[in-house]
């Protein structure tokens, strides 16, 4: 979560929201959250789990189109 927050703090172009999956089950289901953390970019689920900063940046800047 902190990497996403750091990106938002570093760039006015980026927003980062942690979403408590149990509390918003409909959205979690739409985003196919089976494991956490699950990361979505621009509303498209991308991957599960923590990754190093370089990989995180690579993935958010070049997301799969879903």
């Amino acid at each position, binding site marked *: *979560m*902190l990497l*996403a*927050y*750091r*990106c*938002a*703090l*570093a*760039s*006015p*172009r*980026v*927003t*980062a*929201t*942690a*979403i*408590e*999956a*149990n*509390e*918003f*089950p*409909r*959205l*979690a289901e739409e*985003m196919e*959250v089976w494991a*956490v*953390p*699950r*990361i*979505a*970019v*621009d*509303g498209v689920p991308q991957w599960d789990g923590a990754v190093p*900063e*370089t990989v995180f*940046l690579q993935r*958010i*800047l070049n997301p799969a189109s879903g």
Partner: protein
Amino acid sequence: MSILRPDEESRVRELLDALERPVELLVAVGPQASPLGAQDLDFGAETVRVAEGLAALSGCVTVRVEHEPAGFPRFPAVSIRPEGEDVGVRYDGLPWGHELGSLIGGVLEAGKREPTLRPESREALAALDRDLALDVFVTPT
């Protein structure tokens, strides 16, 4: 009642002592989803209690509560605002259990004057020519 055990409270107080600038927690409350088995819990009131509990540990952290402010698709939510500015850092839901750490981490990051990413990461973000919305789904356990 404190939101933390005494030993956790002193540790968090120490961490918050490192804040280099004020951080405002804007708690947005409104109609909330009712997860199965938790219909009796007022998530908004609990979120306010958590935010106020953190603010009680640092003179640099303040709390403001708004009812159904614009731009919040889900309630409750906490917007973490360095010097009161909305920079797009948010926690949607009640930050309890393990996830209290995410809120505290967000406050600590927002309280730093300089971003803590590597220079090459900052350069890559500076070159962004479009907006980017990151959602990270978490659970408290």
